[in-house]
């Protein structure tokens, strides 16, 4: 698989002696991923405990998005309309936003740590966001304004990321072993704090159980409110990420090289760390801890697209959305009527992949 993808990239990007390649990998990958995203999105809305025909799904979505009166959905039953627009559409959109956010955050973290194993849930950033969110829950802030949840998650994510960066990075590069050890220790510490807070603050075990369930990662019962909570943060994070795509390319070659080619390394690092924390927090505040998305997606794409961030970030956003929507579909439908937690599904794909990457890098780690 790996060899095949690399080979595909070589074939597509081979220059015929000077000048630009006639067909870049991006021109193939971006349309393919976009098409996949459209397919899983429609499938995600159509498939479920009550099936809805895909034409109905497309018609209802089009009718809601396009100006009133363009498409007549009088023939579609009220129940189907409600299932499509009020129950499943927001859930799919939240899943897409979470996937895009986590995949782009992972891509950025790998760039800033110069380490392809960096990812929000592996280095403790998601856990930091979750701790922030737990604090917001138990203090009751979430009741006063919906904004508290993402804000508290952002503070938690940023502090965790800052800590892991200070511990693991030397001259802008985090060796695999140091990064993972720092991430594990920090993640464990933060998770322990969350557990402590939850266990101390709740006499009511049902509420505590709900929070624990939420931390495991899941998208059950997500509504348009959740879309509104996370969309602006995701949009801002993506914007900052894309703005710095070229700087991230330079950072991959080392801080000195980046500086000597005109990048303001300090500023770029601050902006990118903030954006990664923002994206992780936005995702965690509406879905709990959904792991490994930022690892699997960018890594697979890099094999075909190469490491250049201009296309990698865009493709990561699209593919991340596709991946999480597909995983969520699996989580909902694999074992009806109960749902498997989304975090469990992404981990089932992501964790073996992570171990595979670790084995690939065992020389660098020294033992394994």
């Amino acid at each position, binding site marked *: 698989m790996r060899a095949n993808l690399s080979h595909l990239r070589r074939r597509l990007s081979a220059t015929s002696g000077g000048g630009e390649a006639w067909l870049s990998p991006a021109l193939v990958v971006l349309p393919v991923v976009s098409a996949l995203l459209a397919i899983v999105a429609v499938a995600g809305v159509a498939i479920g405990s009550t099936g809805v025909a895909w034409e109905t799904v497309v018609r209802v979505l089009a009718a809601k998005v396009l100006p009133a009166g363009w498409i007549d959905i009088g023939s579609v039953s009220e129940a189907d309309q409600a299932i499509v627009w009020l129950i499943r559409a927001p859930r799919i959109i939240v899943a897409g936003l979470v996937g895009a956010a986590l995949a782009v955050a992972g891509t950025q973290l790998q760039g800033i740590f110069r380490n*392809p194993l960096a990812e929000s849930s592996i280095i403790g950033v998601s856990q930091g966001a979750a701790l922030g969110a737990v604090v917001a829950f138990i203090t009751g802030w979430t009741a006063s304004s919906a904004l508290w949840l993402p804000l508290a998650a952002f503070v938690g994510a940023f502090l965790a990321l800052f800590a892991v960066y200070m511990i693991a990075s030397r001259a802008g590069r985090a060796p695999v072993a140091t990064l993972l050890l720092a991430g594990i220790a920090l993640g464990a510490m933060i998770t322990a704090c969350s557990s402590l807070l939850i266990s101390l603050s709740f006499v009511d075990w049902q509420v505590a159980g709900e929070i624990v369930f939420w931390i495991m990662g899941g998208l059950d019962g997500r509504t348009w409110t959740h879309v509104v909570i996370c969309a602006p943060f995701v949009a801002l994070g993506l914007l900052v990420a894309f703005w710095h795509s070229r700087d991230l390319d*330079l950072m991959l*070659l*080392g801080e000195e090289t980046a*500086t*000597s080619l005109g990048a303001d390394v300090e500023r770029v690092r601050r902006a990118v760390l903030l954006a990664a924390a923002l994206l992780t927090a936005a995702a965690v505040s509406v879905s709990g801890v959904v792991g490994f998305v930022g690892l699997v997606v960018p890594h697979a794409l890099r094999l075909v697209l190469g490491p250049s961030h201009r296309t990698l970030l865009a493709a990561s956003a699209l593919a991340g959305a596709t991946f999480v929507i597909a995983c969520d579909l699996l989580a909902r439908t694999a074992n009806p009527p109960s749902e498997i937690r989304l975090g469990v599904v992404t981990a089932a794909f992501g964790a073996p992949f992570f171990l595979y990457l670790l084995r690939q890098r065992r020389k660098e780690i020294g033992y394994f």
Partner: protein
Amino acid sequence: MSLFLRNAGIEIDGRSLIRGVSLSVESERVTAVVGPNGSGKSTVLRLLAGLWEPTEGLAELNGESLTRLPRQAIARQVTFVPQDTRVDFAFTVRDVVAMGRYPHVGRFDSLGDADVEAVNAALARADVAHLEDRFANELSGGERQRVLIARSLATEAGAILLDEPTASLDIDHSLETLELLQELASEGKAVAVALHDLNAVMRWADQVALMNEGQLEAFGAVGDVVRDDLVEPVFGVKVEHVLVASGNETLVFHRLPGLRTDA
């Protein structure tokens, strides 16, 4: 084009790396920076390249303090080839060299014809054109070194600073690189290069800065600096002069620990 250090020094984490260094790197000259390991050669180059700010004294580009110039403006005029050539990600060689054009094009712009032209010329000149589709993380150390030289050439900067560029090169490419540096100087570029091989310095450099324990021991024309009475105590060696068949003088070194000033 001229780069100056004026009484420059830098302290990092309370440790002084170099102090009181004054020297110039000018157009049409190859300036070699020599000295034992840890004597401050790389630091001198980093201050000249504006990568580090001096904590005392000044680093100047054409009479202006480097600290006051925008990064992008420095990047167009001064280019740096680091000693650490490691690349962890699978950029193609062409991608890496094309990054040399980043200081010249806007954040979201693609390379124009002139940029592609500069990249092609740089690839050819550093003898890596045949590697352009290879991944930089799969090359040998020496190949990567030449790719980074190509990237610096692609910037078309007036000053090129190289930190031990020949360290991982084979004999042929090492000579080729030194010839290239001399050629660049003759085309009007200011070249500064940290080197270990004093014979190479005698043959290719125009002026030499001799560093010892963070201080500038001597700075001037090659003949004035590569002298037994300066070199022997700094390196702790005995220098023997041997005339080779070509008529050139070659230095042969014998280890004499007692000669080193710090010993």
